[in-house]
């Protein structure tokens, strides 16, 4: 068990999807009606693949991750749709059943490593707790050995000493490595990483995304990488899903979506990023802001901000349809007339 290279057994089988989300709808009922936070989201991730999920704040990207893990806060609920993990349907399971899946089959990495670790316990104690919770057959010593091997695997120097240190004794980047070790503790099939690098400095960010990529490829773990940073997506993800106002509006291989985006929103988003290469006088800007959930316009949610919007966009909601190697939800690609 102490051999770090075998700590997470690879079970790569490109034929099947590790995670499959079908037509997921998440609703938050309140006094004034029902807010639809996710509207008909479908996506899948293969083993060993990193799917980037991008969007602005409030687009529903974190909500998708939470819904998959069964962590929606009440009164939020999955109104319809299905979530399949390794061929098993996991939406609608009881809290107790989900607890067994979280940590064991789905690992989670959150944005702020300081709040996702308990400051009162050493990182070793937290790792051992997770390991023994899901692998009761391991003794205390074996679990500690595994904790040390995990810390070594995520690149923490002197893991035999560091295992007894407390979270505050680690720097931000090292802390995020500990969180990754926690997520990996019991060989999950899927890791949901929600803004894992946002709280870190750029030079550390590159270390963490590199680590995620290496672990994902070596162990065949599927990764859902939720971020608002297109640069991180470009350098880390294999495929990318773009979300807007709770809907999935474009999905495809990362090169295609970033180089030749099919949806006008993705196109605008890409153009509004200041380029490192050349300086322009005026940045492209998308006027307005994403609608709030209680004021999503009829038809395509993006139509009030879209330069190409026609009468059909204001009337009917476009569905995700194949465009080139990916898919986009835009009337422009269906018959070419908005």
């Amino acid at each position: 068990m102490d051999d770090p290279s075998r700590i997470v057994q690879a079970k790569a089988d490109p034929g099947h999807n590790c995670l499959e989300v079908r037509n997921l709808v998440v609703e938050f009922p309140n006094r004034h009606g029902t807010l639809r936070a996710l509207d008909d989201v479908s996506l899948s991730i293969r083993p060993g693949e990193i799917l980037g999920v991008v969007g602005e704040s409030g687009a529903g990207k974190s909500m998708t991750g939470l819904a998959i893990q069964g962590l929606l806060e009440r009164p939020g609920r999955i109104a319809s749709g299905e979530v399949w993990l390794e061929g098993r349907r996991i939406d609608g399971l009881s809290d107790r059943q989900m607890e067994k899946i979280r940590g064991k089959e789905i690992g989670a990495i959150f944005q702020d490593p300081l709040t996702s670790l308990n400051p009162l316990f050493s990182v070793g104690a937290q790792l051992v707790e997770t390991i023994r919770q899901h692998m009761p057959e391991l003794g205390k010593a074996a679990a500690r050995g595994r904790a040390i091997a995990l810390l070594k695997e995520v690149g923490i120097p002197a893991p035999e000493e560091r295992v007894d240190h407390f979270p505050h004794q680690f720097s931000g980047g090292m802390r995020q490595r500990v969180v990754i070790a926690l997520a990996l503790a019991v060989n999950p099939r899927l890791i949901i990483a929600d803004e894992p690098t946002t709280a870190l400095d750029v030079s550390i960010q590159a270390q963490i995304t590199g680590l995620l990529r290496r672990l994902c490829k070596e162990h065949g773990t599927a990764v859902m990488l939720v971020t608002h940073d297109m640069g991180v997506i470009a350098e880390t993800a294999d495929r990318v899903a773009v979300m807007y106002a709770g809907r999935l509006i474009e999905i495809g291989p990362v090169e295609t979506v970033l180089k030749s985006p099919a949806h006008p929103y993705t196109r605008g988003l890409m153009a509004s990023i200041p380029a490192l290469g050349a300086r322009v006088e005026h940045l492209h800007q998308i006027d307005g802001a994403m609608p709030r959930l209680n004021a999503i316009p009829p038809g395509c949610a993006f139509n009030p901000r879209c330069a190409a919007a026609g009468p059909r966009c204001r009337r009917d909601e476009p569905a995700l349809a194949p465009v080139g190697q990916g898919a986009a939800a835009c009337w422009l690609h269906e018959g070419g007339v908005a």
Partner: protein
Amino acid sequence: MTTARTTALEVTNLDRTFDVSPPFLNRVLYGQKRRHLHAVSDVSFSVPAGGCMSLVGESGCGKSTVARLVTGIYAPTAGEIRFAPGKSGAPLSAQMIFQDPYASLNPRWRVKNIIAEPLRELKLRATEAEIQDRVAELLGIVGLNAADGAKFPHEFSGGQRQRISIARALASEPEFLVCDEPTSALDVSVQAQILNLMRKLQDELGLTYLFISHDLSVVRHMSDRIAVMYLGRIVEEAATETLFADPKHPYTRLLLQTIPNVNDPQRDRVAAEGEVPSPLNPPSGCTFHTRCPLATDQCKAQRPELVEKADGARVACHFA
């Protein structure tokens, strides 16, 4: 941007230390020592009138402390901050735009009162009617509606709130704006709106900016000159194009190499190891030597001075 370049702000040998000692009783009972954090050491730079100077660096490098020193929120421990005379003859007045538009606007005040506060406080307008006219004008300048003044901050999106912050900063007709990470709390599509607005205001009102950011692509878009800071010191300072075309300090090169690039992603890059050391206990000599690929014994022993090169760049490195 103006062609005739006079200096708007001259900062010389700026120093700021913070007392981070343990409480008095701990010192007496446990013999713990006083501790001082050297947040900014020997920082000198100048900002040309009508231009934009940027400070970049990772968290803890002292860039926000410099911003607060310049606006007078902190007093310098040593060194000098000198504003050139403005249009009126008195030294240029500076205003600040903060990072988080959710925290920097009072949630219980209506927007018109938030913007009017500097006008009332500094008695810049005589009558209430004049104040309201000016507020409406300011809202128009930043691209909001005059009717928006009656609303509360929570009714606005992040980008609109940052517009309100800008309107408040412009209320006292400053000639110098210190912008501390003005777009890092915003989404990219909104960030572009705010950056465009700031560029437009610079051209129309002849503003001078001191821009603080950790995002090199934003900095490149906005600034004429860039100073890179590391552990409280400027390690390289150059014109924007010079810095990007020919970065001389190994830390600048590290920063440029590690930013994820959307247009030209390097998926197989080897990330540089190491992290920023604690500013409480900075390394000896050149503070970057712990992470520097070029470091020698000389770097560990002797701190390099900031030296001006032929192309106008200033670099603090023994090997530049």
